[in-house]
């Protein structure tokens, strides 16, 4: 009798333990670059309330250092399940097997493709497979301070780069601002190359590479050469580009613009929402977007997305299931709606890859408060994904930036800087 009682007690204990273990939440580690962490935390809170069996631990790092931190985490196998990623790191991260194709684990992800802008799909695809669901997707745009432009005697924004020069010179002459144009051209900022390319893509013959991915941008008269020369002239000859651009990153540039120290800037579009937020900047409300000056007004369309790491995939089915719930909640639909993506668009003015959201009256009204939804759509139509996104693209872009800065400092000609950058590309391509 005693033995039976003992066995029964043990069985009850084991069942209880199993039930308790089964109820233990799945822990996911999610890494992001620091941007509106309060909103991310609130989204996580709502996600956890919806899925009580999943707990998410958030870790954030500065945007400028994000790729370094993530490399160290991946190499050092620091537990990381879900991460913000970007089109310009995708090839590197995927080739190194740090992140996994979502299609291999969650075939249902393909159903989202018709909703996404083509440049965003391209930016999340490696070797034909989709690696992410969009956190946001946006274009690089031309922003100007309307009041400063009017004070200089202009009623319309510039339509070509020559007009930008003419207007900036007028502002300088009338002492409206010493340096009307500013860029974020610190050697290591990942935005540098995107801004440069957005200017290149505003020309008809925008291609930087041929079909075999050989550089052609280092030839005289190419769009890249025109842009590089325009930048060098702007900084060294006309002195309309602030020389401090070489130490500037995104946030200081937005602050300088908001303070009225900059009339023209090329920035990711969401900054326009911030610049026009009442009370956020001294000049809030005076900023407008124009189509990218140039021959075609083309620009760069980019995508930042949620990716699942190999570490998460290796943790087994329960973690994969939890990761999919997370991915779908944050980058896909919940109850048939793009809940989180819409929130970013409404509250922070972030762009989106999910095209059906352009028909949402709430979103259209929200964008029109700080921008111009029709112009935004027009700009998005001529946006293109970055070319030649190879595994060494991110590495090369930093070499390109360093060479370009040598030209801006007058150490090299614009063409020589492009030739040096092309030589680096060929070396890396071997």
């Amino acid at each position, binding site marked *: 009798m005693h033995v039976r009682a003992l066995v029964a007690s043990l069985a009850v204990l084991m069942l209880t333990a199993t039930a308790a273990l089964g109820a233990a939440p799945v822990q996911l580690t999610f890494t992001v670059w620091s941007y509106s962490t309060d909103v991310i935390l609130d989204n996580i809170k709502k996600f956890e309330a919806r899925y009580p069996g999943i707990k998410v631990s958030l870790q954030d790092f500065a945007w*400028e250092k994000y790729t*370094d931190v993530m*490399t*160290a985490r991946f*190499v050092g196998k620091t537990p990381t399940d879900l991460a913000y990623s970007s089109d310009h790191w995708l*090839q*590197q991260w995927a*080739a*190194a*097997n740090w992140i996994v194709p979502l299609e291999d684990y969650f075939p249902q992800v393909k159903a989202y493709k018709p909703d996404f802008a083509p440049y965003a799909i391209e930016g999340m695809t490696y070797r034909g497979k989709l690696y992410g669901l969009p956190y946001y997707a946006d274009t690089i745009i031309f922003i100007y301070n309307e009041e400063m432009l009017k004070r200089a005697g202009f009623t319309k924004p510039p339509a070509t780069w020559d007009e930008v020069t003419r207007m900036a010179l007028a502002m300088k002459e009338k002492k409206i601002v*010493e340096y009307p144009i500013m860029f974020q051209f*610190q*050697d*290591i*900022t990942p935005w540098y190359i995107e801004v440069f390319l957005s200017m290149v893509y505003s020309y008809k013959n925008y291609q930087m590479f041929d079909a075999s991915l050989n550089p052609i941008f280092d030839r005289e008269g190419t769009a890249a050469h025109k842009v590089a020369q325009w930048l060098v002239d702007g900084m060294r000859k006309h002195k309309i580009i*602030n*020389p*401090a*651009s*070489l*130490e500037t990153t995104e946030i*200081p540039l937005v*602050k*300088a613009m908001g*303070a009225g*120290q900059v009339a023209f800037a090329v920035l990711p579009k969401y900054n326009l929402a911030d610049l026009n937020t009442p009370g956020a900047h001294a000049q809030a409300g005076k900023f407008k977007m124009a189509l990218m000056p140039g021959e075609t007004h083309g620009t760069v369309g980019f995508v930042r997305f949620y990716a699942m790491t190999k570490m998460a995939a290796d943790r087994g089915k329960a973690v994969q299931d939890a990761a999919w719930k997370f991915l779908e909640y944050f980058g896909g639909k919940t109850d048939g709606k793009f809940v989180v993506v819409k929130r970013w668009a409404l509250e922070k003015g972030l762009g989106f890859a999910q095209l059906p959201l352009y028909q949402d009256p709430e979103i259209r009204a929200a964008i029109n408060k700080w921008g111009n939804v029709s112009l935004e759509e027009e700009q998005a139509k001529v946006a293109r994904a970055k070319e030649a996104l190879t*595994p*060494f693209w*991110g*590495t090369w872009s*930093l070499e390109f930036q*360093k*060479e370009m*800065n*040598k030209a*801006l*400092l007058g*150490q090299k000609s614009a063409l020589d800087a492009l030739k040096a950058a092309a030589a680096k590309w060929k070396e890396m391509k071997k």
Partner: protein
Amino acid sequence: MRLVALPRRRYREARYAYATVLPVVLLVALFTIYPLLFALITSLREVVLYRPWSQPFVGLKNYLDVVRSEFFASAWAHTLTFVVGAVPLATVLGFAIAHLLNGRSRLAAWLNVTILLPWAIPTVISGIIWAWIFNSSYGAFNGALYSLGLIDSYVPWLSRPRSALLCVLFAHVWKEVPLTSILYLAALQAIPDELYDAARVDGAGTLGILRRVTVPLLLPTTLIIVVYETMVGIVTFDLLYVMTGGGPAGATSLISYYLYNSMFVAYNFGQGAALAVLLAAALVVFILVYMRLLRSEEIYAT
């Protein structure tokens, strides 16, 4: 030949000694020898993170590639410029401040603590502070110069190659001087008062005492400081990373930054390891020179 057995007690003592030293030896092997060997092996292979499936043995190719690179020469040139500026400044300023602190002032204790503050601030934080101070739009340095009428408009200090390196150098010296001051202060306080009294009796003035008593007796400390500051200067990284990102146009990329660039930007761990080995070898050579110079007999013989 007849083997002589160790007495039992001596054998036990030897066994005890080995047993107590063994954990330390294992720890050193784990945290020093293993990483060193791993780095050496990595430096002889082609290890590129985005090609993890292929890591062939390439012999000395990584070393040759690194040394032939255009960046190698410029990074060493920047590093030597930085070290040549930083070491004398940190040493002389440390010496001067230690002299001031060595006075029998009632404020001495408070000053001793205060002087250490820059050293206690994490380097990344001090980098951020100095980047703000030298900022071209709102920096306090520009503000001060402008208020004094020394400049007409704000100067982009961190956007010009030479001034950017000088700014980083200044921030580095600011951070290092407290340590050199404290080291000198400790050495100064160890000099017996009798030596000074004797020198005065012999008719030596302040400069004479400094030249014939203080400086010779502080020579070992000076050597330690010079060697330490040289090594710190060569491997400086965090200030550059925060203040300039190695720019503009690579003007503040020291050798340590080149190493970081190879590993965490180019993801080329093979070349990064080769650079690390070369850097370590350069430091070892330097340490050997220092060990030779530090022989006290030779110092005092001068």
